[in-house]
């Protein structure tokens, strides 16, 4: 099938961000579950893991993951709205900007508490 998406439209970039963030979250989830399962070995095992998560690269990855989670949520809500409520061309760019803005706010709120 030929790909005829209009890559110049912000909706294409919203689609791409939604897909890449979803892929990242799907790949991260098994690791997240395994990390939480450290608690089965006791609170000290979980604390040892949490201490590792305070290294700068892990913190940066966590901020990116929070952004991915938030942008997948807000982008997904936009899609549900478009599919089940109404499609209005004129408001799409505004909705995409609002979705990105709320996600950025969540990532910054997380970053301010973790750094």
């Amino acid at each position, binding site marked *: 099938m030929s790909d005829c998406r209009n890559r110049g439209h912000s909706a294409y970039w919203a689609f791409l961000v939604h897909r890449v963030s979803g892929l990242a979250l799907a790949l991260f989830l098994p690791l997240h579950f395994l990390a939480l399962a450290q*608690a089965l070995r006791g609170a000290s095992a979980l604390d040892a893991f949490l201490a590792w998560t305070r290294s700068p690269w892990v913190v940066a990855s966590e901020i990116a993951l929070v952004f991915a989670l938030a942008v997948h949520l807000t982008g997904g809500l936009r899609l549900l709205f478009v599919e089940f409520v109404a499609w209005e061309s004129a408001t799409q760019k505004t909705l995409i900007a609002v979705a990105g803005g709320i996600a950025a706010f969540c990532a910054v709120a997380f970053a301010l508490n973790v750094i």
Partner: protein
Amino acid sequence: MTARGETRLWLLQRASAAVLAICVAVHLITIIVAMRQGLTAAAILSRTHGSIGWAGFYGIFVLAVAVHAPIGLRAIAHEWLAWRGRASDAVVVLFGIALLALGGYAIAAVVR
């Protein structure tokens, strides 16, 4: 897959998305508040240990994500890798089962 099967997957993807919208919003708020209070094993376990409410919440969360993520990965396999058919369907179903098992394991670890 038949057109009816594809339609069912599409509906399941949207229904699980609606459930996840609530779960992710609660999870994001919990993450930000938890980080503000300092993330320690004691803080996490004091919130979740023996809590039927959190066990139920995370149970629904894991179930919804185990439905949602494999359908999304299937679309990526189809559109980006041109990988269709029973093999790709089997791989994403196995991924969903793995998410369900690992998620259940994680919930048991923090709630027990």
